[in-house]
């Protein structure tokens, strides 16, 4: 009997040993890599933005296809020249980046430097997983004023900067000159208003050769309409939804009238998966799209002649919507200085100037807008510099607020609800979201 008890006990002891062995080996590995001294910057690496840890190896992750990955591989090469003592290990995560990063962060295996969007900002900044960059920015001589001001709204929390904008895009009026010639009317100009756009869309639609204006029930495409009429989706302190205001509902009525008279079509109505494709297939004369159109048209529809102009203006002002992503640093990084140096370098005017030349993205430094090579791309980008242009960011619950707008438009166009009913419901939904309920 005793021998059996011994067997059981030894089983337990062995399993306990296995468990402790796991723990201790990890601790050992940690202590080996622990002693890192911060070396003062030597004369040979004087151009490195920060005094970095000697022999640091940092991991960098972002989403993106092959061409985007190549842009960042090139950036890493350039970084190597200014900070030769830092090794950057690039680990792209093309799909489900946000989900993966959150899981990695919870498990303590997140990269040192990574892309940050509004979703990751919400998850990481308030919980202290992102490094506040203000001190290292001051040390490196980088100021928030170096960037296009509206871009930093997403990455700021309680006055601290948690990521630096790496690129941005916005919407422009994309059109087919052929459709305008066909209808015998003048092409859009930079002083167009929404009424001009509607009139042209109606005229073109009547020819029967092209649909007038393409737009899905999408908060982002509706944003320039709303913003240019003085509307906002939420108050500046992100506490109150402002969706049932006259400014918003007037423009919702405007697009709904266009939809009902047939001058506005949804992409699905003309068998396109999105409006950019509808332009490429020459199904529609006008739409609101961004800088990604350049690549799409070059690769998929190289023979189609297309142009862009500034987004049309409303009664109050002319305003566009900005989308942006940043580069952030893991607060738990083993090499905070090297990581911060890399983040600062990636978003510096020096590196952005190189990226802009490839036509991949716009520089986040306002003085570099002239570096945009493609004429169409440049016309789109100008919308981003309009004084009333906004980043559609309303705090942690941004996507719920935006979702409420998209669904309101969808319900109106289905004939389910009137504009008043739909936006009263959207207001209630958005307010619930902003209350954090």
């Amino acid at each position, binding site marked *: 009997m005793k021998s*059996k008890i011994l*067997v*059981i006990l030894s*089983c*337990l002891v062995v*399993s306990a040993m296995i*468990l402790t062995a796991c*723990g201790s080996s*990890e*601790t050992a590995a*940690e202590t080996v890599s622990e002693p890192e001294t911060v070396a003062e910057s030597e004369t040979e690496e004087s151009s490195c933005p920060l005094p970095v840890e000697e022999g640091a190896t940092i991991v960098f992750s972002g989403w993106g296809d092959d061409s985007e990955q190549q842009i960042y591989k090139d950036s890493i090469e350039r970084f190597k020249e200014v900070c030769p003592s830092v090794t950057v290990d690039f680990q792209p995560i093309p799909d489900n980046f*946000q*989900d993966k990063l*959150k899981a990695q*962060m*919870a*498990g*303590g*295996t997140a990269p040192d430097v990574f892309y940050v969007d509004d*979703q990751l900002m*919400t*998850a*990481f900044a*308030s*919980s*202290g*997983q992102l490094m506040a960059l203000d001190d290292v920015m001051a040390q490196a001589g980088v100021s928030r004023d170096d960037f296009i001001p509206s871009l930093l709204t997403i990455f700021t929390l309680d006055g601290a900067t948690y990521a630096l904008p790496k690129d941005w895009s916005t919407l422009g009026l994309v059109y087919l000159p052929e459709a305008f010639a066909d209808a015998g009317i003048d092409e859009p100009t930079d002083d167009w208003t929404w009424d001009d756009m509607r009139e042209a869309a109606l005229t073109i639609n009547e020819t029967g050769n092209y649909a007038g204006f393409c737009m899905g029930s999408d908060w982002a495409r509706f944003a320039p309409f709303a913003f240019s009429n003085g509307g906002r989706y939420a108050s500046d302190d992100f506490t109150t939804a402002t969706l049932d205001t006259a400014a918003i509902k007037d423009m919702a009525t405007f697009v709904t009238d266009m939809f009902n008279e047939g001058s506005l079509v949804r992409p*699905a109505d003309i*068998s396109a*998966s999105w409006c950019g494709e509808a332009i490429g297939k020459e199904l529609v004369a006008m739409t609101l799209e961004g800088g990604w159109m350049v690549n799409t048209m070059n690769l998929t529809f190289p023979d189609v002649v297309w142009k862009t102009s500034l987004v049309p203006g409303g009664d109050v002002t002319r305003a566009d919507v900005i989308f942006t992503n940043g580069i952030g640093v893991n607060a*738990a990084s*083993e090499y905070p200085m090297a990581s911060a140096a890399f983040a600062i370098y990636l978003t510096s005017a020096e590196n952005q100037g190189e990226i802009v030349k490839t036509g991949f993205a716009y520089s986040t430094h306002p003085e570099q807008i002239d570096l945009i090579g493609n004429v169409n791309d440049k016309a789109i980008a100008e919308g981003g510099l309009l004084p009333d242009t906004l980043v559609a960011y309303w705090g*942690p*619950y941004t*996507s*719920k607020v935006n*979702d409420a707008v998209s*669904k309101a438009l*969808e*319900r109106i166009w*289905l004939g*389910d*609800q009137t504009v008043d009913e739909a936006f009263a*419901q959207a207001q*209630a*939904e958005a*307010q*619930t*979201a902003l209350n954090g*309920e």
Partner: protein
Amino acid sequence: MKSINRSSQERKRVFASILTFAVIVFIIMLIAVMNAPTKGGPKVMETTQTYLAEVKKTAVPFLIGVGILSVILGIIAARTVYHVWSNPKKRNTLFTAYSFLSPYLLVTSLFTVGVILFAFYISFNKYDVFTEPVWIGLDNYKKAFMGFVDSTQKDFLQALYNVVWYSIIVVPLQTALAIGLAVLLNSRTKMRNFFRTIFYAPSVTSSVVITLIFVWLYLKGGFINGFLDKILTPLGVTYDPINWLGDPRGLFQLFGFEIKSAQWYLRGPSIAWMAIMFQNIFTTAPTFMIMFLAGLQDINPVLYEVAAIDGANSWQQFKNITLPLLRPIILLVVVLGTIGTLQVFDQVYLATQGGPLGTSLTPVYLIFREAMGSQGPINMGYASALAFILALIIFLLTFIQRRVLERGTEKY
């Protein structure tokens, strides 16, 4: 001599039960400590001390809860051991069984039971993975049903509503289709194995691949609309192509009822949702077909011969012999089908992301969305609460189905 023997036996019993009690409590507490909520991150994991300090800081209520549970389980185990100890045969069986089971038990309790306990605890907290859980009592459970009073918080109710329709439509259809296919393939036809392979193919294929193919088929300019157009146009019907995966109109609206969007719960399943149902029936029916085929092989052919001699036609044979004898398998298929349909996720994630207008939102997709924080902050507490509510619903339904279907099962 006998009395000394007895008292030493008694001492051993007491000693064994105390030892069992201590070991059970120790193991459960070890598992609890390893599963305790922490802020995570490499800094916490640096040394055992920092980890334990973090656990002490964030997880005292969790540890107390599991501690009470471990004492209860320990007492149960100790009582069992105490009663078994003096019977050598029972004792040997018990210890041999548990020593063989111990590696699996340890892993399961650490990575499954431990995690479930953790999730249950978290469901009473506000927890974003990175900061300390904050005890909020039943708020997460209340929030799930807030849709009854506040229409802006209807997500979970709508998700439940959708998946109930999904079960009501998918389970009977896929079961009927599976029986039909199985009966066909059980008859002596030519190339029977060929057809079995072909019919089973959709179940072998990954559901991700099938969903992506169906997304293409369902496009407004896609194959299904083209096919319907080809058929209907010669019949003189003008066919207006449907955006299958993007159409939120409900089943009852299609019959011409005017239903306001505030009464979304009267609309029935949307076109998009029914499109996903159709795809799911196509994918799962063959899996269950295999089970019915196995069941059909077990039916004694003599029964059919006797029935034929008595003059029963093939429909009567099917109705009075095949169906009653398949009853246990029908129960299994209906239960598995119901559980599967209530947990539908991948088709929604790939094809519609819960849209249009929330008509394809499902509880599991909602749990994923809240846990991952894809719309707002990470809300693990709420996600865990939803998961437990769903588990309870599935448990109740399975229980009811068993009672109803098992009642009339033929026994041979």
